[in-house]
């Protein structure tokens, strides 16, 4: 070891820096290779016309972005994302909150319920998609079989084949696969609620909904903001459950921006335009994340 290096390591501050960087750099390198580089390369591709196979990528400037605004398929897909974001966020959080509060005060068998509710969360979205594709099967699926068995034949239908029903049916499947996560996080948050406040409210004559609204929900605000932000981002990026079940069909009834992007880039071989769609999707995710992180930080203050 030369004197200069020995001198550097003798300096405690520099040694701390070196140790810190030694831990950070491997992760940073991976991040640059697998996130930063593809991100900027996607921006570059979005400015080209390319079919993904030809050796030459024709630079077209912002033409792909101009096309986006006049593309009815994009607006249709974004509207489905919006529906997914609203229903797919409110519903699992509401169910998680309802079940969490219900089980919070020491109901017997809480461990059992907690396990059962959380079980779908451990399944990969692909598995959830396969399960619900079978559940919704018009000929052999348990849902239609049950409806027919109880004389409600009129309600039995091709759930994933009906353009008017397919999206809500998929959102329901998505909620089933996700509400357990909300439930468990909310249960954890409920452990921090000040019981003295609840008891005081009881003495003051506050009923259940009042205790929920004025004590429990404010006490859970950090948890609720976190899971809401997380669920919203998932709503923008939702792909796998739709691709496994309907591929965006019937017609365009369940296309969201991620499925439309995949279809455009890899099925139709419009890689440049697909990249522009991916940038739009990333931008929407960033905006949604930014808004909710801001709200959360403001709430923390």
């Amino acid at each position, binding site marked *: 070891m030369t004197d200069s290096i020995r001198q550097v390591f003798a300096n405690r501050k520099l040694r701390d820096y070196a140790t810190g960087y030694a831990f950070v750099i491997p992760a940073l390198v991976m991040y640059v290779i697998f996130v930063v580089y593809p991100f900027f390369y996607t921006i570059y591709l979005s400015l080209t016309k390319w079919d993904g*196979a030809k050796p030459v990528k024709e630079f077209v400037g912002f033409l792909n972005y101009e096309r986006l605004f006049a593309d009815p398929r994009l607006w249709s897909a974004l509207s489905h994302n919006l529906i997914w974001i609203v229903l797919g966020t409110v519903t699992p959080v509401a169910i998680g909150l309802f079940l969490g509060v219900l089980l919070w005060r020491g109901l017997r068998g809480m461990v059992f319920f907690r396990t059962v509710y959380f079980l779908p969360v451990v399944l990969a979205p692909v598995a959830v998609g396969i399960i619900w594709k079978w559940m919704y099967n018009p000929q052999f699926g348990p849902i239609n079989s049950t409806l027919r068995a109880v004389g409600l034949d009129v309600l039995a239908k091709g759930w994933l084949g*009906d353009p008017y029903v397919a999206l809500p049916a998929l959102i329901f499947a998505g909620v089933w696969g996700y509400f357990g996560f909300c439930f468990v996080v909310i249960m954890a948050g409920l452990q921090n609620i000040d019981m003295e406040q609840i008891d005081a409210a009881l003495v003051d004559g506050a009923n259940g909904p009042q205790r929920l609204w004025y004590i429990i929900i404010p006490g859970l605000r950090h948890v609720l903001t976190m899971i809401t932000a997380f669920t919203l981002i998932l709503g923008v990026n939702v792909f796998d459950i739709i691709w496994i079940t309907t591929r*965006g069909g*019937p017609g365009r009834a369940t296309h969201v921006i991620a499925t439309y992007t995949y279809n455009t880039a890899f099925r139709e071989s419009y890689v440049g335009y697909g990249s522009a769609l991916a940038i739009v999707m990333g931008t929407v995710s960033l905006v949604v994340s930014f808004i909710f992180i801001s709200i959360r930080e403001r709430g923390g203050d």
Partner: protein
Amino acid sequence: MNHKTVLRFVALVLVFTMLGSGYAQDPVEILYWDQVSGDDAQAVIETIIANFEEAHPNIKITREVFTLEQLTDISRTSIEAGEGPDIMYYDSGPAYGGILGNAGLLLSLEEAYAAYNWDERLVSVSRDWTTYGGTVYGVGHEFEAQGFYWNKRIFADEGLEVPSTFEEMVALCGTFRELGYDPPMAAGWADWGGFPISHNWYNVLANSVPSDKVAAAISGEYPFNSPDIVASLDLVVELVEANCYDEQGSAISFLDGNAKFYTGQAPMMLMSTWAMQFFTDEVTDEFGFMILPPIEGGEQTMIQLMGAVWYIIGDTEHPEEALTFLNYLVSDEAFRLWVEGAKLLPGVTGVDFSDYDVRPVYRDFLNLVSGWDGPVGYHLDVLTPANFNTTLFESTVELAAGRLTSQEVADRITVEMERAVEDGRHADITG
């Protein structure tokens, strides 16, 4: 040199000789990506490969099976990365092989067509439909026709007649409903979106619009939202309203839909002759095959297509061996196996089928094709670009669901064709 040294030397020479000879006899490995499905067809291709390897001990075929969707997803990137196959069984047209051919990822077969005399041996569409940018890249295999299978037992039991006009076909769908049967067009929407309903539109289009106009539309020279083409979509709506389509069709998979036909739940099934391979021995009813009856004022037209095609990859290290295998796949020896075993009709000319051991429904098809002298229509999606196909499949499902009008469907696909023309992704079949 003592005795031990001599023995060591001899042993060493023997070892190197054995290693050397072993190396010399290592067969060339050809990676073959296949999309043949169906148990019988799988058995046939395995037999063909075994026979080929026996006749060519210097070549070993390694077969990997994919679906069409998987091939579409991975072929391009795999070939570019040098991880692709040597030979691939993939679909024809600008949406599939065209993308690879135009990007220079496939081997030109111009010389091979001359060397193996394929222009004489194969039907002309083998070359026509696998020529991209003026170069032929493929050898067509599955020669198909679009039509309807019908259950002979049910037709006899119910006293039904095979329709001879489009109007009779429409009426027959209503009769099926009255008798409690499922409609003829059900299968595959859940798997393939609007493939089946679009395929039936090709039939209607071919029977109601002159083929030169359809060819011009495919080539981007005649708009798809022209009144006569819109009128052909109206006829699809007529079939929908007449109960020819299953209202739950978009939720029924290909296999489940086919099962309705095999079990007699549906007396008719719209499908290409490609589906013959799924008529296993367990399916005991006997079936007939017919093409769409003529539409009033028009001439009955048969939709023929070349389903999947063999391509050789441009950067293969073993073009000679791959070509040898490809030529064997269309040989006389393989032909009988394809027809009798796999129920697939290779696009080979001048074959006498009379002594072939095939099911009557398949014989109907062979007789129909070999004796056909009427007009032949276009199966659009093997000739049209991918963006057009996606929009068409999506839109026809919405047409059947009553969410779009014929005009709206036509307008959508016209926009997509204009985009493809602008980007040079269309096929010019009028020249």
